[in-house]
């Protein structure tokens, strides 16, 4: 069964050269006929199917549309064209600790963030110890989050988000913040969830990690699917791009030198 179905999704952003945030600016621009938007497609005709229990990786260079795709799947953006279906409950980790309030303590934030993710206070209370245990931050529970390091914030965020057993877990570069010990722990937790039947869609710039953890991988390039298939195969192709780019760079670097010779 397909847990996530993305059908021919395109996402267009209006890249206003200057954003008109006040009426005066807007009217001035409208009068001067400057009210043009540069249309920009962050995604073009992307289709993706993720099966139940699959660990799916999403790779691509900066700005290739990975985060945009995840946001569309989790409902933050509405696609300009195409459709998305997700079966079952979804835990979106677009950024850890969405809705954390830096002025509140970790304890208060656990409840706030939990309810943002749709958990009930009763459930959070039951699982509270588990969350704190996993994040290893018991001593800091009553400290406002603004006094946390970013890795510590991420720990709390990850602990809350994975305490449920979601049907679909969507993770955008969340493993990169923690230290290596915590990263291992997170990978372990993800595997645990997987064995419980959770489907994972993971974005990561660590190709090694993607290759190690994922069953299948999709490679996005400038908003289009460049390649989709087995993890090994796609990752190898992606790495080859690195070499290509490197040699292209070398070639580019050589040229000016040659010019100078003349």
């Amino acid at each position, binding site marked *: 069964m397909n847990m996530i179905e993305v059908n021919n999704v395109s996402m267009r*952003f*209006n890249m206003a050269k200057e954003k008109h*945030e*006040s*009426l*005066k600016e*807007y009217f001035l621009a409208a009068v001067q006929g400057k009210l043009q938007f540069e249309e920009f497609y962050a995604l073009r005709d992307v289709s993706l199917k993720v099966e139940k229990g699959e660990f799916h990786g999403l790779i691509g260079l900066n700005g290739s549309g990975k985060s945009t795709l995840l*946001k569309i799947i*989790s*409902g*933050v*953006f*509405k696609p300009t064209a195409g459709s998305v279906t997700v079966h079952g409950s979804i835990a*979106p980790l*677009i*950024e850890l600790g*969405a*809705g954390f*309030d830096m*002025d*509140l303590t970790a304890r*208060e934030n656990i*409840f*706030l963030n939990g*309810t*943002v*993710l*749709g*958990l*009930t*206070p009763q459930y959070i209370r039951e699982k509270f110890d588990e969350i704190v245990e996993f994040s290893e931050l018991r001593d800091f529970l009553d400290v406002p989050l603004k006094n946390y390091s970013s890795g510590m914030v991420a720990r709390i965020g990850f602990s809350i988000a994975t305490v449920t057993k979601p049907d679909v877990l969507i993770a955008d570069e969340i493993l990169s913040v923690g230290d290596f010990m915590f990263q291992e722990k997170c990978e372990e937790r993800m595997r645990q969830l997987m064995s419980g039947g959770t489907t994972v869609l993971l974005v990561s710039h660590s190709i090694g990690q993607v290759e190690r953890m994922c069953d299948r991988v999709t490679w996005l390039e400038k908003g289009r699917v460049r390649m989709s298939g087995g993890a090994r195969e796609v990752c190898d192709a992606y790495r080859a791009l690195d070499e290509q780019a490197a040699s292209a760079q070398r070639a580019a670097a050589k040229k000016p030198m040659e010019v100078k010779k003349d």
Partner: protein
Amino acid sequence: MQLLKAYAHDFWRYRYLLQNLIGRDFKLKYRRSVLGVAWSVLNPLLMNIVMVVVFSTILDMRGSGIKNFPVYLLIGQLLFSFFTEGTSSAMGSMLGAAPLIKKVYIPKYIFPLERVCFAMVNCLFSFIALILMMILTGAELHATVFLALYPLVTLFLFTLGVGLMLAAATVFFRDVMHLWGVFTTALMYFSAIFYDPLQMGSFTVGGTELNVSQVIRFNPLYWYITGFRATVLDGTGLTWSMVWICGLCAVLALALGLIVFRRQQDKFVLHI
């Protein structure tokens, strides 16, 4: 109808979030203040004393016939400040929620709703000030006081509706915030907060003579405030016109607010 059903479903699903957001606002508002929640009571009380002094000694605008001017004034102040606080904080709510709604899907109207609820919580706290003032001035307690719930609830819905419209508009044009500040200041003088419109004369605009007590009927806030006074202070109960005007304004504002907000909400995330 289907729309309402969808809203109700979301509301039920996200009720804990609403609760927690209100709790957060509350904690943040009073954290590090020595008197804490007591300010919700003290603030209107002190304001009231200042205004009573100003309007009954320096500027004599109280007219002659207002029974229990301090309480009359306080009711106007409390309801009006609920409206301004509710609408202006709802107005900025989408911008404030930007970090959140860019990362997780949450029904957007939760945020204006939360702000208006928070304003209502504050308003309810400040009713302690009202009770104190009524005791101090020896105001009678009437059985009709329970009817005050009607203007209060309809005012809440009215404020929510206006707040939703403003929130949607602000996402696209930040100017709305400044305009609204000016508008509410002007509105304050036309809501019969510190005078009785029946005792005010008339004024002329461009050659036509207008009567204050006629003009003020077009201000919905006047009806909510007057309705509340009628039940709490005068003990006369609600007149028919109070009932239908309060109700109609609430329903219209809310319906319009929901429609405008719903039509725009998918675009919000791209503009904040």
